[in-house]
């Protein structure tokens, strides 16, 4: 009786707990298996669409593609030059290719730690950017002049991105420092500027710079539309990046600044050698994030009539024979954006590892 008393309440409990665990595990195994097989199935469908049943022949049109049942990559085969180069004159496409390669090489080179001094990076970018500009615009060395409004596709996207980041980054540092000063007038008014820009949608800023500004400025100050748009992007980028840098500056322990002061370092030296490097280090993840966002946002120029990658993509399928193939074109463009953004974020991850971020 006493044994029963002891074991009876215990035995069912163990059994119940055990069975509950088994059921739970079984359920989760089943659920996982179901989800996994669903995922695999979807992945297979995508794979089948993109590769197995796809049509790639350059002669194929709607009929052949529909018969194939999969993706119609023929649209890319026929229209890839439009997607990559936009309205850039057909015979001069090689210049666009060369210019893009220069920018890509410059970006890759500036990722090499050996080149990380202000002078070396400065020279690298000066050379890279001038090369890009001369190749794209021409008018020198016997290259025919191709005005900015004819630029398009990937090279325009890269140009807007790199130019706005190149202008925006130094501007962001200046804004961050101005906002961080102890002079209330300066810090308050800088704060006002930054917060105003941040509280406006990028679209409205772009529209104001591209369309409205020419009505207000005297003619000589208007300049090419492309550069007004780049200034707009740079301002927008700088406003956000300034806050990221300021966050980084505030994350540097106060003792660092005080120690530097105690050593008799000037403001310039304290900033350049002690505070900013550390601020950059802590704000790196957010900065890379901002870069990726800035790259994506270049596609908004389509609203002010530029033929960036996305707009050229639209034009590529919007013609009688290809109207049905928009999914393929968008998938292709998405892949291009993915390659660049993924590259950027992977590089960011490498930098974080290298700097031992989160470990030190």
């Amino acid at each position, binding site marked *: 009786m006493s044994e029963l008393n002891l074991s009876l309440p215990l035995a069912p409990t163990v059994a119940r707990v055990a069975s509950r665990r088994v059921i739970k595990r079984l359920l989760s195994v089943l659920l996982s298996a179901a989800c996994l097989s669903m995922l695999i199935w979807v992945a297979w469908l995508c794979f089948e669409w993109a590769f197995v049943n796809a049509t790639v022949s350059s002669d194929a049109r709607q009929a052949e593609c529909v018969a194939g049942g999969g993706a119609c990559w023929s649209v890319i085969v026929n229209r890839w030059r439009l997607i990559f180069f936009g309205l850039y004159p057909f015979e001069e496409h090689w210049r666009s290719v060369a210019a893009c390669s220069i920018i890509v090489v410059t970006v890759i080179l500036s990722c090499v730690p050996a080149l990380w001094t202000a002078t070396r990076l400065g020279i690298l970018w000066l050379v890279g950017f001038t090369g890009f500009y001369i190749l794209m615009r021409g008018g020198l060395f016997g290259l025919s002049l191709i005005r900015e409004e004819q630029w398009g596709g990937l090279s325009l996207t890269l140009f807007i991105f790199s130019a706005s980041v190149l202008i925006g980054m130094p501007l962001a540092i200046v804004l961050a420092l101005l906002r961080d000063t102890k002079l209330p007038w300066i810090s308050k008014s800088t704060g006002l500027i930054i917060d105003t820009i941040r509280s406006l949608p990028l679209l409205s800023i772009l529209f104001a710079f591209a*369309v409205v500004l020419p009505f207000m400025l005297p003619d000589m100050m208007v300049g090419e539309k492309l550069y007004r748009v780049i200034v707009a992007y740079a301002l927008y980028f700088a406003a956000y990046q300034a806050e990221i840098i300021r966050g980084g500056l505030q994350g540097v322990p106060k003792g660092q600044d005080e120690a530097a002061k105690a050593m008799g370092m000037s403001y310039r030296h304290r900033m350049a050698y002690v505070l900013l490097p550390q601020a950059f280090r802590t704000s790196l993840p957010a900065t890379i994030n901002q870069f990726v966002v800035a790259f994506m946002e270049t596609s908004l120029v389509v609203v002010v009539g530029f033929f960036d990658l996305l707009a050229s993509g*639209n*034009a590529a399928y*919007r013609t009688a024979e290809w109207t049905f193939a928009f999914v393929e074109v968008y998938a292709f463009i998405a892949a291009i954006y993915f390659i660049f953004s993924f590259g950027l974020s992977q590089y960011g991850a490498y930098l974080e590892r290298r700097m031992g971020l989160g470990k030190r």
Partner: protein
Amino acid sequence: MKKGLGAIAMAFGMFASQVFAAQPTESIKSETLKTVLSRGALNCPGHNGSYLGFAEIDDKGNWKGLDIDLCRAMATAVFGTPDKSKIIPLSWVQRWPALQGGDIDILIKISAGTLSRDTELGFQFSNPYYLGATRILAHKKLEISELKEADGGTVCVLAGSVQEKLIANYAQKLDIKLQTVALDKSEELQEAYFSSRCDLYIEFGPTLAITRTKAANPDDHILLKDTLALSPEVMLVRQNDDAWLDIANWVISALLFAEQEGITSQNVDDIKAAPSSPEIAKFLGAKPGLGKPLGLDDDWAYNVVKHVGNYSELYERNIGMGSPYKMPREINALWQNGGVLYPYVID
């Protein structure tokens, strides 16, 4: 080095040609024309993407389409060659400020003439160069040719659109009953129509004709004869430049006159050599008088027909039977063929 010298020489040449081109401007009344001549190019709008049939881009990145050809015709009238037209990509919202601010010289972007565009925005319209009708697409297997015969059918229509009201009123007028399927997105609509959920599909004409090309077999669908509403597509110019508007109107007129008289880009040289009437002689510049009042060369119309074509050629190669869209002329035919388009009289 040689190339560099060549470039310099070319720059000088361009400078000289601009000075040269700028010379006869004393007799020119139009401010816009003066600007265009001194710039050496006519700026027209394109799209930030494309608009099927009216402005699209070919494999080599060149613009083509009815709007684009009209711009080329304008440029030919001014410069004698269509190559001096420059297409500036613009989004829909940008078109008004771009014209007001002078980024473009004339707006040819499938835009209808409306009261507010005329008055509040401060533009002037040319004569309509295209009448965009609201039409109905039907499955061919139904064997109908006009809406009257579609009593009891179902019609696909964009929810909350003008067309929804139009079709209801029109059905009432014809005293037939239609069941409407109103959907929010045009992709859904097209899907519903193609899957035979609807017998009919009502839309803006060009959009409809283009939808038809997406069908598995475009010949399985026909446009009904009915026209439910008309949107007159015009060229727009800034106010207070009547002389420039005159040029726009006369370019449209010249395209239509050439068609009326059977003058095409193929036979224009023969006809110019032996014109059949004094009007045609004057029109083609064999006799003087067509250019001076407009501030253009006397053979501007000849150049337009020679290099761009007459209205029929423009229409057919861009949106008509010579194009994938296969839109019949119908209301956009000349008056003598049952349409409403007509040229002005050349006296």
